[in-house]
């Protein structure tokens, strides 16, 4: 009969109208500035630099190896290596700029970093009134302490710390065993591709 489908549809919208008052599964809107959803462990937004200890300048894990600069797909990272007066490289970035108006949050810098120095931040309220300078983050703005990393990605950070500690211990042991004057050259590059190594498999 003509009109049957229309009446069916009308009952459906009526059900949704009333359902939105009682069923929390229907009214899923989050009232954003007041209400916030808890961020997921894996959430990523823009990268930041991890530093150990309290000094954001000295504690930076970054050694200015420029791998991330090279691998970054939109080329948004800009690194200048620090050199001392004699021009000897210092394993420390002099400039580390990241243009977040260009960055596309792909996490490839994190994946390629052999030193676990760059990680993804979850901060997303980054609006700024200067679209050029305000969105070009420098070293100071990017450096964030390790405990901040623990706060935003607890599981991942714990893994990273564990791995770094293990590597450090291994390097020290090796150095001791060899008792050679030459220290182990940086953390092993073996971890290169796996910043977030497989977690415990979930039972199916």
């Amino acid at each position: 009969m003509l009109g049957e489908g229309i009446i069916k549809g009308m009952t459906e919208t009526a059900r949704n109208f009333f359902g939105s008052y009682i069923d929390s599964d229907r009214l899923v809107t989050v009232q954003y500035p007041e209400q916030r959803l808890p961020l997921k462990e894996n959430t990523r937004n823009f990268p930041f630099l991890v530093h150990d200890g309290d000094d954001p300048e000295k504690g930076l894990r970054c050694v200015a190896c420029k791998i991330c600069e090279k691998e970054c797909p939109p080329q948004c990272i800009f690194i200048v290596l620090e050199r001392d007066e004699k021009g000897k490289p210092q394993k420390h970035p002099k400039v580390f700029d990241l243009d977040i108006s260009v960055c596309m949050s792909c996490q490839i810098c994190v994946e390629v970093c052999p030193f676990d120095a760059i990680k993804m931040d979850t901060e997303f309220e980054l609006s700024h009134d200067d679209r050029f300078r305000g969105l070009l983050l420098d070293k100071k703005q990017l450096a964030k302490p390790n405990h901040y990393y623990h706060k935003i990605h607890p599981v991942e950070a714990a893994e990273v710390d564990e791995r770094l500690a293990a590597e450090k211990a291994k390097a020290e042991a090796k150095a001791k065993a060899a008792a050679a004057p030459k220290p182990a050259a940086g953390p092993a590059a073996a971890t290169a591709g796996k910043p977030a190594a497989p977690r415990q498999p979930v039972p199916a």
Partner: protein
Amino acid sequence: MSPLDQVVARIGAAIPGARVQILPNDSPSGQHSLLVDHEHAVAVAKFLRDDPDLQLDHLANVTGVDWLDATVKEKAKVRKVINGAEKEVEETLERKKPGFLEAVYHLYSIARNHGPVILRLRTGNRIDQVRVPSLTPIWRGAEFQEREIYDLYGIVFDGHPDLRRILMWDEFQDHPMRKDYVEPDDYEYEPTAHDKVLEKAKKHHTAADRPQL
């Protein structure tokens, strides 16, 4: 589906004079392709589509490839007179391999569920002999893709019903997907972390329209 060499043989039988050549592919995918000459390309395509054993009715993908002029180094034994004595000497010869443009067609069969058979059409060079026959009359699905190749690579398809630029605007001059395409550097000026772009952009902008930093 019968192996590719049999397909070639059947094409040769069905279309006398067609020069079809198998181009091997070394990668693990093992997708070898057929190089077809211009004169018989449409006939070969029609045969591939209509042959009851092949029925390659689905033209999955059409694309262009730009091969630049290359120098191929070949080692060859040459007889030469050195110090009066004729000797056989191994020598590297540099051979100029002229560049060309290529249109690649990936064919599958919906009716028989096999594929891919890959057809390649090559132009004479990259400058003035850039015409190849269009296969749009055989597969309508090639229409937009051939237009795209014309737009981005500059291959002219003879027999295409509506050959215009498709992605770039009509007044655009060059073919941006060619390997030797030079990007225009008159970007809108915008401070970035990248000096290269910045330097290029600065040349095109006067100080007046540059935002104050």
